[in-house]
């Protein structure tokens, strides 16, 4: 059983982790919508320091409204950015942004 299902609203955490992370700065603290569950993968933060023993973590594909990520740019309202985010970087969204 995964923590999130397709359609769930999630918010990206700002975990302040040092070292190699795969969650870009521009998406942290933003809310999006889970579009797909990708399966479990070894955590790249562990792999980056040679730890290959796991545990494997859930990975989700999450869509964000582009206009909310880049408020200074002229972007069609329906445009979304989809990136893959590991479970420990996500929390249920508290915001009221429109779902993409």
């Amino acid at each position, binding site marked *: 059983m995964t923590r999130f299902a397709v359609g769930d609203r999630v918010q990206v955490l*700002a*975990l*302040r*982790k*040092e*070292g*190699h992370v795969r969650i*870009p*700065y*521009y998406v*942290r*603290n933003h809310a999006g919508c889970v579009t797909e569950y990708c399966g479990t993968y070894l955590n*790249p*933060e562990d*792999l*980056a*320091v*040679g730890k*290959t023993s796991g545990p494997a973590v859930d990975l989700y594909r999450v869509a964000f409204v582009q206009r909310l*990520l*880049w408020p200074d740019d002229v972007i069609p309202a329906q445009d979304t950015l989809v990136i893959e985010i590991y479970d420990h970087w996500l929390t249920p969204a508290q915001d009221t942004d429109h779902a993409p």
Partner: protein
Amino acid sequence: MQDDKGSKGYHDVGGDPAGEIPKVELPWLHWEKQVEAIRGLLGDGTRRIVSLDEVRRGFESFGIDKYNSLSFYRRRLEAMTDILIEKGIVTQAELDSAIKAGTTRWSDLDETP
């Protein structure tokens, strides 16, 4: 840089102003393919000697000047050798001597009429 979103590495440039995107197809050079082939072998599921994420951690530790001065595959190559040395899989002396031997071999070929 550290704020309420945590740190932003120099490699984490998504959304930064970057000017015009050069729309030219670059050739994929032979040595670049070799770098990628060796990286693939080092990181595959049976060997797990150096993972892609270790390589990324390597070039994310270069410092911004070195990072910006190197091409995509040069970064991967330098980071890969850094990690191999860090893990004690090869020594700096072994690497230096292999580079010297390779350089000599190719120089000799260049001089062949």
